């Protein structure tokens, strides 16, 4: 009994650990059970498709999640994803690798400019990245001459979606590799605690010697490069570059990050949680496809799910509910006395 209570108080009981595991398990069970109930048991194709969805989602969620942990919010991942797609299609005509490199380098460079601006001038990241998101969509259109670009390099298109080990493709494995790299980098260096310190208490982090400007700049470079990579691989897979991805990638990435235990106010979250959150959201999306929900219903369900998560994450929810409860109790009291 005592041991169980101690277990509940241990590091596992922290939200950043509990939330990703819980949401992953719930969605995994649903993914395993629901198709069977519909009379169409899972096959390896469902897993493959789920991880195909995970490929771009995971990269964007990792990009967004890392910035969220540090207390910043990078809307421009949407624009970087679009730009990465066009850069890869433009530069990767002969060599797919060259296109990916161009996308990562180009987006990374713009991320450096943006991150440097935000860090040096201490700007709030939201309005800056909203502006740069719009600018990047414009730049993408300029580079593509306002037309959807088709990608002629069929070899690269086929290669990224090869089935490997039944469930995976090079695309999804690259995303897993990015997560592995991030876990290693952030788990084994000072970077992890530094990111959390930046998000939880910026001034304290500065005072205790965290190179704030350099870390924030680095984060925006990583975020942009990851989003560019996601866009490049996605445009290879679709054999064309989308000029405007819409809001959906951002919504799914936010859902993945929050289910992965990242707090929207910064300072909380771990990379493996982000990984579990991304896989969970990708499987959920695939589940909706399997049971053939309409696009509208899928959107309503994701929107409602996210609204609940954001409300639960809200810092004053408990206080507000308690106050309402007290007010109702007070109102009920005099009435019961008169009766």
């Amino acid at each position, binding site marked *: 009994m005592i041991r169980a209570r101690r277990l509940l108080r241990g590091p596992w009981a922290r939200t950043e650990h509990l939330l990703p595991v819980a949401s992953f398990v719930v969605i995994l069970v649903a993914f395993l059970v629901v198709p069977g109930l519909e009379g169409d048991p899972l096959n390896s194709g469902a897993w493959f498709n789920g991880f195909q969805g995970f490929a771009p989602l995971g990269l964007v969620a990792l990009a967004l999640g890392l910035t969220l942990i540090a*207390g910043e*919010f990078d809307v421009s991942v949407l624009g970087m994803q679009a730009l990465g797609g066009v850069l890869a299609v433009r530069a990767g005509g002969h060599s797919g690798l060259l296109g990916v490199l161009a996308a990562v380098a180009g987006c990374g460079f713009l991320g450096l400019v943006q991150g440097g*601006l935000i860090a*040096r*001038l*201490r*700007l*709030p990241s*939201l*309005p*800056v990245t*909203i*502006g*740069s*998101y*719009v*600018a*990047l*969509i*414009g*730049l*993408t*259109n*300029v*580079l*593509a*001459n*306002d037309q959807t670009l088709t990608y002629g390099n069929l070899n690269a298109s086929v290669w990224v979606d090869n089935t490997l080990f039944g469930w995976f493709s090079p695309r999804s494995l690259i995303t897993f590799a990015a997560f592995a790299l991030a876990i290693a980098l952030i788990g084994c260096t000072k970077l992890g605690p530094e990111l959390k310190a930046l998000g939880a208490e*910026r*001034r304290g982090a500065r005072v205790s010697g965290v190179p704030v400007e350099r870390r924030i700049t680095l984060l925006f470079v990583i975020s942009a490069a990851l989003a560019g990579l996601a866009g490049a691989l996605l445009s290879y897979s679709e054999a064309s570059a989308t000029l405007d991805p819409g*809001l959906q990638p*951002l*919504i799914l990435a*936010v859902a993945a990050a*929050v289910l992965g235990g990242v707090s*929207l*106010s910064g300072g909380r979250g771990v990379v493996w949680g982000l990984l579990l959150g991304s896989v969970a959201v990708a499987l959920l999306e695939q589940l909706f496809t399997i049971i053939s929900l*309409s*696009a*509208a*219903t*899928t*959107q*309503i*369900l*994701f*929107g*409602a799910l*996210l*609204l609940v998560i*954001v*409300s639960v*994450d*809200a*810092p*004053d*929810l408990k206080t*507000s509910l308690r106050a309402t409860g007290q007010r109702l109790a007070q109102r009920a009291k005099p009435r019961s006395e008169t009766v």
Partner: protein
Amino acid sequence: MTGRTVAKEGAAPLRAPRLNGRLTIAGAAACAFAALVLVLALTTHRFLTWQNIKAILSSASLVGIEALGLTFVTMVGGVVSLAVAEVAVVTAMAFLAMLGAGLVPALAIAMALGAAVSGIQGFAIGAWNANPVMFTISAAFLIDGVGQGLNNGQIVQPAAGGYGTLNATPLGVPVAVYVLVGLALALQFVTRRTVLGRQIMLVGENRPAARAAGLPITRVVTLAFAIAGIAFGIGGAFLGSFNAGASVLSEGTITFDAIAAVLVGGTSITGGHGSPLRTLAGSLAIAAITDVLLLRGFSTGPQVLLKGMLVVVVVVVTQARSRGRR
């Protein structure tokens, strides 16, 4: 994120720019940018014609009306609403569907629906301190899904012809332009001359201080969002009338255009500052720049690119002024 303790006096929050190295660079960049645009505009053939000015006004009107509403969200500390276009489209649908009851009732319903849908979001943000960007983006996704589901994804057609009145052009200027200017003046009055307006500013400037002062935060934030929703509803009615139909496809780039107008108007993203009149100026500036590029034969790409860069430049200049906030 805000830890500002600078006291504001007077109604107009005008501050003398402090002289520091970064500011002067940013300021110089902004001045150079403004000068460039001005020179480009004045040297553009046909820019200074009555015809073209009317075109600028009418292209600013729709996004301008939405941006005026969004200003209230930003001023009360709600950062931005990412559900502007979605609220506008569902109100447009309601407006068109209710036209059978007459123009005025349909308009009233559009405004009431906008106020309700936006006010609910304001309640969550005011009462629970929910993250406004995330909450509104989730709401946008949900509303968009509902909009798709309604009418089975078909375009909502006007139930009667009354919407033509909103497309009229008395004295050669579209009705939407009159509404834009009238709404800007009315909202400016609310901001500067009513108790609610002052409360909105205080809650946006410093929520803990407003709470300590005993302000009803939940009510103020909800009302600010509801006022924004009324503007989104009016904009939605015009959106539905312009297109003589409404579907989620008409959302386009309204949300980010409205955000751009608010930011270019110089309203501080962290709340407590700004004015509807400045937002009006911001939306006119964006419309004028887009118009210059259009007259000079640039396609959509460069127009959008420049709009985004303009937002970044203005944010750098307005935010770099108040330093040491983190």
